[in-house]
């Protein structure tokens, strides 16, 4: 028996709700286009959420006071996942978010003024730290007590989901909203540019000609509940989180090891925790950033675990862009949808397999009975996390 998932919320370049995200996934419609909201010296492809900050504040009925975009996106997705649930004293409720940039979208705008010793609106300064983004989301939903934020770069949200599940399994919390959020920033766009892994064309995960990633912004949350909580809320169980594992690659600060050691450990650990054999995995939602390094290392890890019979797999990053700390969260939502809708999601922009591995991802929406989904998230610092989602009470 895993931990029940009863609510999902997502906002990304392909939609402001789970429903609109699903519609684009089914239609094979990418959200990656030339950046419009983010100011960049030259045209650049990003997966932007198609709402200004003011529009989000209006939707959430918030005053027009400073708020990082990271917090605002998080509020949208968290509110959707939380749904009609209410804070109540008989259920210990927590929230674990994750972010890599925190309020950097605001900080990078006033930083030079600050250095020049100009007076800055202190409400702007308070938006900077990552923990603050989560506190604002918690405030919106009326959650207090266990409020936490993880920051392990691109695996952050998978780790939030994992920590939430562990807190429920250990009886520390009855229900917990878990996920992640990251806004697009000049900081990260320039950062991946400086690493020479920002593709000027559409990213092509798992394709031989792949040349890097496109960044995106997003937020995703899922609501985890214990049996005790379910008895009180009566919420419908969408599916279960049954497996999780985090492992360190310990190879390089940013690059993944050629033998996929950390990734292999994470996948094997998650399967073991779920008590699911490799051949029982119906679909893999891969990390698949579109960089030379990640996709080869991840393919190697898949072969290490699954041998010659790698299950249907795809990366959804050609739809959303790489949304960093939010990636594991929106991909968790997509993994839930794969189970509830009975589909394997397509990998856009794929033509030719990697010479080294010959693996070909799913390129069309494929109807299937999806019982167990493996979702991978790998980050800087060699931080590798895998989750297993399973059909309810299998």
């Amino acid at each position, binding site marked *: 028996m895993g931990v029940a998932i009863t609510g999902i919320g997502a906002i990304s370049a392909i939609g402001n709700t789970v429903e609109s995200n699903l519609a684009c996934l089914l239609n094979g419609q990418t959200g990656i286009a030339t950046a419009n909201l983010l100011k960049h010296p030259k045209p650049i492809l990003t997966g932007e959420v198609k709402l200004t900050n003011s529009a989000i504040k209006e939707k959430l009925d918030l005053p027009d006071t400073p708020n990082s975009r990271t917090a605002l996106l998080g509020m949208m997705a968290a509110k959707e996942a939380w749904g009609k649930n209410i804070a109540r004293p008989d259920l210990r409720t927590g929230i674990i978010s994750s972010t*890599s940039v925190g309020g950097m979208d605001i*900080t*990078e705008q006033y*930083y*030079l003024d*600050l*250095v020049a*010793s100009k*007076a*800055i609106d*202190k409400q702007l*300064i*308070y938006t900077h*730290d*990552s*923990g*603050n983004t*989560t*506190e604002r989301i*918690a*405030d919106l939903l009326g*959650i*207090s*007590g*266990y*409020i*936490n*934020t*993880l*920051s*392990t*770069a691109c695996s952050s949200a998978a*780790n939030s989901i994992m*920590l939430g599940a*562990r*807190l429920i399994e*250990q009886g*520390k919390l009855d229900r917990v909203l878990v996920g992640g959020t990251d806004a697009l920033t*000049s*900081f990260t766009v*320039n*950062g991946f*540019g*400086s*690493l020479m892994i920002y593709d000027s064309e559409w990213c092509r995960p798992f394709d031989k000609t792949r040349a890097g990633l496109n960044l995106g912004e997003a937020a995703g949350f899922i609501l985890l509940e214990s049996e005790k909580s379910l008895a009180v809320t009566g919420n419908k169980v969408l599916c279960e989180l049954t497996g999780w594992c*985090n*492992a*360190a*690659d*310990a*190879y390089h*600060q*940013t690059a993944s090891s050629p033998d996929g*050691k*950390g990734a292999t450990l994470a996948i094997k650990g998650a399967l073991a925790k779920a008590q699911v054999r490799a051949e029982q995995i119906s679909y893999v939602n891969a990390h698949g950033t579109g960089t030379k390094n990640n996709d080869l290392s991840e393919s190697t890890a898949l072969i290490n675990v699954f041998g010659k019979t790698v299950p249907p797999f795809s990366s959804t990053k050609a739809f959303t862009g790489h949304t960093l700390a939010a990636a594991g969260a929106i991909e968790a939502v997509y993994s839930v949808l794969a189970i509830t809708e009975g589909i394997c999601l397509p990998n856009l922009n794929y033509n030719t397999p990697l010479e080294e591995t010959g693996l070909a991802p799913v390129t069309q929406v494929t109807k299937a009975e999806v019982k167990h989904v493996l979702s991978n998230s790998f*980050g*800087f*610092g*060699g*931080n590798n996390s895998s989750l297993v989602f399973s059909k309810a009470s299998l």
Partner: protein
Amino acid sequence: MYYINGSSTISHQASFRNPGFAKNMQPLAKGSEVVKPDYKEFIDAKLIRRMSQILRMSIATSVDCLAQANEKNAGAIVVGTGLGCLQDTEKFLQTIKTVEGLIPPTSFIQSTHNTISGQISLVLGNHNYNMTHTQNSLSFERALEDATLLLDEGTDNVLIGAADEAIPVLDTFAKNLGHHNEDLTSGATFLSLSNKRAKSGKVIIEACEANGRVEKHHEHLKHFLERNEVAFGDMDLILSIAPISDENTEIKAIDITKYSGQYLTNAAFAVQVAIDLISNRSHSFASINNQSPIKRVLVYNNLIPGNLGLTLLRSIEA
């Protein structure tokens, strides 16, 4: 019951590899600096050059901590940091704001919060669970809770720590926020936690709990002590992170920030002070004088109103 088999702190006090440092420690003078060890003893000289202060402090204390616990490696690495790798973050921000064309990636690579835990895994060649918590003033406690969760799940020998670094621009931030007299400082503390006592272990963590957005601190403390079957009078010393504004006269605490300076994870420094006082059977600290050695200490993290971290430590002998 979680045994502290090793603990190490680099701070603005002479806390590193200096047992007994806490007893006669004085409040910091204005403009104090990190008391640096010779980092070459702990980190490969080739790597030091590129490392920011927070990375150097964290790796040196991690390595020292494991050596004290007589452990070659750790079953997991868990780190808390309030603001992360500020030096590299600012350096990269400065670069993108002022340099056109090709920019070097090193400071971007090292800007993520989990550079600390990642670099420790690299130095140790550690493939186990690796986590980074960042919940402003409760980052250390969140990491410590995760570590105790891991121990309860059966992972042993968890390396858990917290680190934050001050950079000059933080003072400008603080001034803008109306804080003119804060002494913003840096520090790193790592603990080697285990379900089993090693020879080096003299102190245990009885409990750690953190809560965000709480109003009545005193009520939380009361319930926390009740759950752990500890009476107010059982505590020999309370180390708080800010002065305690509470009508309850039972609470007699020493404000540890006077000794560590202010950083978001200085509750970890307070834990090191507690460990040092308990292990060395000290009778007194600051204005607190006890008849018998200090055996039980509460670290009361009230830095940010609404956030409350509670960490209870006691002597193994108690």
